């Protein structure tokens, strides 16, 4: 059934339908609406879950790590400075192979104090071993949250569902909310491979000598490498049940394109319009939407972008001294090609600044 939902509430609704058992979070704008709704669901009994109030994001992540270690389905949400405060424990969650799902609302880091959207917060966590999935609209937020639990539990790695502040978190859109039974068919109860058992006490996450530590890291990478196939497979099921699929990347009019715009997040909607306008004018423009950032879908990026002469990557993030982060990743993916497209990197929209669908014909 279609409901008009705020982006934040689309996440919360999905979490409720995923029958999450333990949640912990600390409020921060623009994430707060998510956990407010979830604590309401716990209070009114519509969710059979424990909501742990904590004093910081660091503790929120610690709490869900503890809960996930007991083999229950867990969720948290954060943003910006809150995510930065979790940093240490993000590494722990992935190396402990705990399938935690987090909604991460992209917000700029201060100073200047800024609550508007900017991807630098989540991209600064790219090396923590979390799967990252970026969303374009409210429906995708709902669907990705549901998919995230199945993906996380399939590969024993945590997943960050990433969404833009305000443009997505605080915008109301019609969202198809599937029936509980259908979600249950897609997402069966969690069968943990790691589970603390009081009857068989053991230590987990304890000392690992160098050789063991190296193997653990290789195992995480193996999990990451399995993600594209696993994601594709679960999307097959998802499409069967719900009639939608997203892919790790989405290519629009790329087959014969002379120039391909590479975007992520809500700016994708603007880019779709620009590409449609250019096509109407007879210009051969295409669009690549990056949904999956970790693991980076290098093979698909190479396959789609490789034939085009020019690539324009629009980054709403900044790695100072290097430029836009998506542009770097795209360049690295294309490097192994014998004939590489020219990649132009554009940093735009930081701290919530707008992207306007204007272009100069000579830029193409």
């Amino acid at each position, binding site marked *: 059934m279609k409901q008009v939902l705020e982006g934040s509430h689309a996440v919360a609704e999905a979490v409720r339908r995923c029958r999450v058992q333990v949640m912990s979070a600390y409020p921060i704008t623009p994430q707060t609406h998510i956990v407010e709704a979830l604590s309401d669901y716990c209070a009114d009994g519509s969710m059979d879950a424990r909501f742990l109030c904590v004093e910081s994001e660091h503790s929120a992540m610690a709490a869900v790590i503890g809960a996930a270690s007991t083999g229950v389905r867990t969720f948290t949400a954060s943003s910006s400075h809150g995510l930065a405060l979790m940093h240490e424990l993000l590494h722990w969650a992935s*190396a*402990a*192979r705990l399938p935690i799902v987090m909604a991460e609302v992209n917000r700029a880091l201060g100073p200047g104090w800024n609550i508007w959207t900017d991807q630098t917060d989540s991209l600064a966590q790219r090396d923590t071993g979390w799967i990252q999935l970026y969303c374009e609209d409210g429906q995708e937020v709902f669907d990705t949250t549901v998919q995230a639990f199945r993906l996380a539990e*399939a*590969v*024993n790695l945590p997943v960050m569902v990433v969404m833009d502040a305000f443009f997505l978190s605080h915008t109301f859109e019609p969202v198809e909310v599937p029936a509980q039974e259908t979600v249950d*068919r897609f997402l069966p109860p969690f069968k943990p*491979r*790691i589970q603390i058992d009081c009857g*068989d*006490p*053991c*230590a*987990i*996450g*304890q*000392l*690992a000598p160098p050789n*063991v530590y190296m*193997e*653990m890291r*290789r*195992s995480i990478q*193996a*999990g990451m490498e*399995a993600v594209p*196939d*696993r994601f594709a*497979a679960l999307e097959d*099921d998802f499409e*069967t*049940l719900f009639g939608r699929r997203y892919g790790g990347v989405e290519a629009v009019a790329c087959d014969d394109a002379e120039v391909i715009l590479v975007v992520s997040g809500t700016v994708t909607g603007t880019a779709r319009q620009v590409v449609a306008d250019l096509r109407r004018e007879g210009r051969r423009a295409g669009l690549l939407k990056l949904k999956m950032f970790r693991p980076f879908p290098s093979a698909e990026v190479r396959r789609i972008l490789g034939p085009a002469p020019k690539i324009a990557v629009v980054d709403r993030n900044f790695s100072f001294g290097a430029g836009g982060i998506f542009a770097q990743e795209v360049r690295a993916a294309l490097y192994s090609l014998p004939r590489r497209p020219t990649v132009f990197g554009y940093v735009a929209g930081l701290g919530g600044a707008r992207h306007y669908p204007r272009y100069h014909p000579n830029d193409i």
Partner: protein
Amino acid sequence: MKPIPESFPEISLFIARSHSTTAVNQTGSWRFARPIYNEKTAPCSAVCPAGTDIGRVGMLAAGGRLKEAAALILEENPLPAVCGRVCFHPCEAVCNRARMDESMAVHGLERFLGDLALSQGVEAPPTEQRADGRRVAIAGAGPSGLAAAYFLSRLGFSCDIFESAPEPGGVLRWGIPAYRLPAEVLAGEIARITRLGCRIHCDTSVTSSLLSEIRRSHDALFVGCGHGKSIGIGIPGESMITDGLAFLADLRRRPAAAVQGRVAVIGGGNTGVDVARSLRRLGARPILVYRRRRQDMPAFPPEVAMALEEGVRLMELAAPVRVERADPGYRLTLQTMRVFETDDRNRARVCPDTAPEREMMVDGIFSAIGAEAAEPWQQPPRSGAGVLKYSHLQGDTRDFVTLYGGDLTNSVRSVPDAVASGKQAAMVFDTLLEEGAGAVSGRLEASRVGPGPSLSMEIYRGGPRKDRSPRVVGWDDLNPAHFLPAPAGLPGRLDLNHRLSSFSEIETTFSETTAVEEARRCFNCGLCNQCDNCRLFCPEMAVAVDRTRQIDLTYCKGCGICVVECPSSAMDLVEEQR
């Protein structure tokens, strides 16, 4: 839907996990300090003259164990319904909760439990003592005499109380107006005391012949006659001044006639305030005339505040000089006083000011400037061989064991201090007759609540309270993170119009809901209230709960987390002795 293809190879999952149980790691071997359960003394109970175990009363009431809570008060105080109404509750002044929001309303909870004990027939906690023929005579059925009879009866003594008035209660019956203490509440608590077997002989003054008889028939005498005689004011025209204590007593004997016009009440103590408030209820416009300032008044500040609320006026720094008859009424001449210094408690010392005398035309004058022992034999002995002095007693063992208590000996003249006298007398008589004079100070010392001087009958009788450390728990000993702010419960109050038109009781007793909520505000300072934090926070699962709590020293590594997370400081970390 086609079945989910699970043809994928199993995902690599290589994590650090031990394959033996962690039980092999006996973390207790790391320990250089160990946690111990060590219950301590709550500040409220240490300052309660009656030694009431307030922290545990709060704990029992918070758990809904209301009759047990009432019985626990009765272990230490025979008059909870009275004290819940008239005690000046020093416990609340030292309540650690005040550092978070407001003190716990101990008096409100005590009053509720006192009333509950009356309405539900909660009796004095039984003792193992059996009547054994030891007999004590008690002069005066006021609070100290009643308390002495209560505790002595419970220790197996046979008691006779001799009371000159027609009914027992002393100052509670004749000195405190009904709007503060209804007669039936007092009667109920006295009945519970007499059910222990002691006899109250009313209309029986202790004459010299009765004294001689007591010396023959009893083993000891407790003198708790109180201050029955008002101190004279000593100014010309004194005969035209009505004695405040006698006025209050008359009010309790028979319905009073209306009093019109402006009346002066001389004095700044509780009796003066009660006289003025009673006169207000009878229709007069009373003015309290006090030689010092409001902040120097010995009356309890809330009583002064309510008196002013009710329309009693206060004239500070004015001392009566003479009274003359005028027509109509009287001319009261007053000397204006000034503060010439303040003592170390910031109480004013005053002397006549240079300003001329003032005159005040009034329709009546009452005085309540203090009282003293009514007869010479009631005076405690000053000093000498065989004279005993304790915190709430003085005694004389020269020819017949006689102990003096209550207002006759106490520096703070209050009901709970009178209860303290009665309790101390019971302990002294009991020890004196059982173990001899040499044992008395040791037994009293061992029965102290915290640093004293309050005494606990439970400790004296060897109850579990004796195991607590005398250390008084302060705010810094607590972990306030485990307490949520909550406002103190408020009793209902009669509105002003109703207050002024009757002698009905002003405040109502807490409802059960309010009382339990109030009890939940209690931090239970120094006491284990089974919150289970020590077990829940222990990283080694080394806290075992099987009726009592124990630390499993095989695994306790001495981290001290349990001690820190104990909200009420019922645990300590001590150095490991190896």
